[in-house]
């Protein structure tokens, strides 16, 4: 059973409220601070809900300061409610319930029951994956899906479309096999207990950081958003042995492409690389062939490039990964290109060949 979106959003709002109230109570201690930061960093939805609750509290402040509620009677009723003990098992204790709850309280207890149900759903949602140490776990996304998950150690896994990872945690090491696709890892540092991503025989060792690994047939691309990673091709490292001398250290803002060997790091705009988090894809002078492949990772109607020469046409822009239409519309404005579209196909042709070959959809 997947909880509904609304339930998930409510569960996140409840967490935001918990943190907000705790923050109003005074400075957080060191441990709470780092848990709060980790919570904020786990998802843009968390950040959004937190700021929204802050805005709501601001309005509530204004409301409380512009209303007349006589304080003393309120306090009397509040104390009365606060100290009302509702026997949990009156029959066992041999007493009838002392009082019938007034109407408002009943409504509130219904609300409280509903809130508990939401918390139960949220807890279920958070622990559903039964993240027990030692058991490998597979996470995958289908065509056009993305997901965000907290791993058992507090690290966060963002999975892009058509991707799969298998997580093996042992006492000594945290290992994630990137079976296919693309994932961004925000790693919680745990001293000696390393974090390693294996994409086939490409090994990416974390040195406390955030990085993106994109596995395609024949190539693995590693982009470091923050911190440093070590990359090499070969078997998993031995726990006590130093890394192989060939292991390449890659710092923040750099990217390496691994094919038959580990390429040299080149500087990149890491924002572009993690843009998929918001389902945007960013291209800077990238060949049309690769741009189309990228869209085809998300979309349901494949873009076909009929002309080999067109595949190298440079494309620059930011697009919504699921909005093939606006991408195709902007392609159609290029003078070299003709777009032919039917309900089932999108063909990209050079202007010259389009004149020779009219569209047929009956292949």
């Amino acid at each position: 059973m997947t909880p509904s979106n609304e339930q998930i959003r409510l569960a996140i709002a409840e967490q935001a409220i918990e943190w907000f109230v705790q923050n109003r109570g005074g400075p957080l201690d060191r441990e709470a601070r780092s848990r709060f930061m980790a919570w904020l960093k786990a998802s843009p939805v968390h950040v959004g809900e937190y700021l929204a609750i802050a805005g709501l509290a601001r309005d509530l402040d204004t409301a409380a300061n512009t209303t007349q509620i006589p304080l003393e009677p309120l306090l009397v009723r509040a104390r009365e409610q606060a100290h009302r003990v509702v026997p949990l098992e009156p029959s066992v204790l041999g007493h009838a319930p002392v009082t019938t709850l007034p109407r408002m309280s009943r409504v509130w207890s219904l609300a409280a029951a509903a809130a508990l149900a939401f918390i139960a759903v949220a807890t279920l949602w958070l622990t559903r994956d039964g993240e027990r140490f030692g058991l490998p776990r597979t996470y995958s996304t289908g065509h056009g899906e993305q997901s965000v998950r907290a791993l058992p150690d507090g690290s966060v896994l963002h999975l892009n479309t058509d991707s799969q990872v298998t997580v093996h945690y042992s006492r000594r090491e945290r290992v994630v096999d990137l079976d296919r696709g693309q994932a961004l890892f925000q790693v919680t540092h745990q001293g000696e207990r390393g974090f390693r991503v294996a994409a086939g025989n490409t090994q990416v060792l974390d040195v406390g950081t955030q990085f993106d690994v994109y596995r395609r047939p024949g190539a693995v691309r590693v982009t470091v958003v923050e911190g440093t990673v070590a990359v090499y091709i070969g078997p998993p490292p031995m726990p006590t042995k130093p890394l192989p001398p060939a292991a390449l250290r890659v710092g923040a803002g750099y990217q390496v492409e691994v094919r038959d060997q580990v390429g040299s790091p080149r500087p990149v705009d890491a924002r572009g690389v993690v843009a998929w988090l918001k389902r945007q894809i960013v291209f800077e002078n990238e060949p049309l062939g690769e741009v189309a492949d990228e869209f085809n990772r998300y979309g349901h109607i494949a873009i076909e490039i009929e002309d080999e020469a067109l595949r190298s046409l440079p494309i620059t822009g930011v697009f919504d990964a699921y909005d093939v239409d606006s991408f195709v519309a902007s392609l159609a404005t290029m003078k070299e290109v003709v777009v032919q579209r039917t309900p089932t196909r999108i063909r990209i042709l050079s202007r010259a060949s389009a004149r020779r070959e009219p569209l047929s959809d009956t292949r």
Partner: protein
Amino acid sequence: MAESRKAFVERLFAHRGALQAFFYRRLRTKSDAADLVQEVYLRMLRVSDADAILNPEAYLFTVARNLLTENAAVDRRQAEAADVGEADGMQHLLDVPGFDTALDVTQRVARLRVVLKELPPQCCAAVMLQYHHELSYQEIADRLEVSPSMVNKYLQQALSHCRRRMARLR
């Protein structure tokens, strides 16, 4: 199944919670707001030494406020009529609607005055003592003759109730 999961992802990422609405009044278009959500989040991600931040909440508000200011500066440079005021501190930032972009601040506050009176007395009292009388949690606990952790719980229940009631207006 695939469709419902896709819809879920879509909602989670495309809607991105109430922050869009949060920023909405300050910005001219919803897509600006969506970009800001992502920008705030990415800047939070870039914090490498989380322990160095003594007050993560204040940091978050500062990031959000700076982005609004930057955005305003860009808008001013473009000499367009931006609906962005001076970003003069956290209070100003928080003076932004949480949910309903169709309601102005007067309507939202009027609504919350009604919601406040619906709350169970202990929650209502905790809110009044915190916001109106500016007492600390310990002082509120003393007045209500409960523990500070109960005060915490009352305030959470109050906000949770308000959020539900305000969200329903959307």
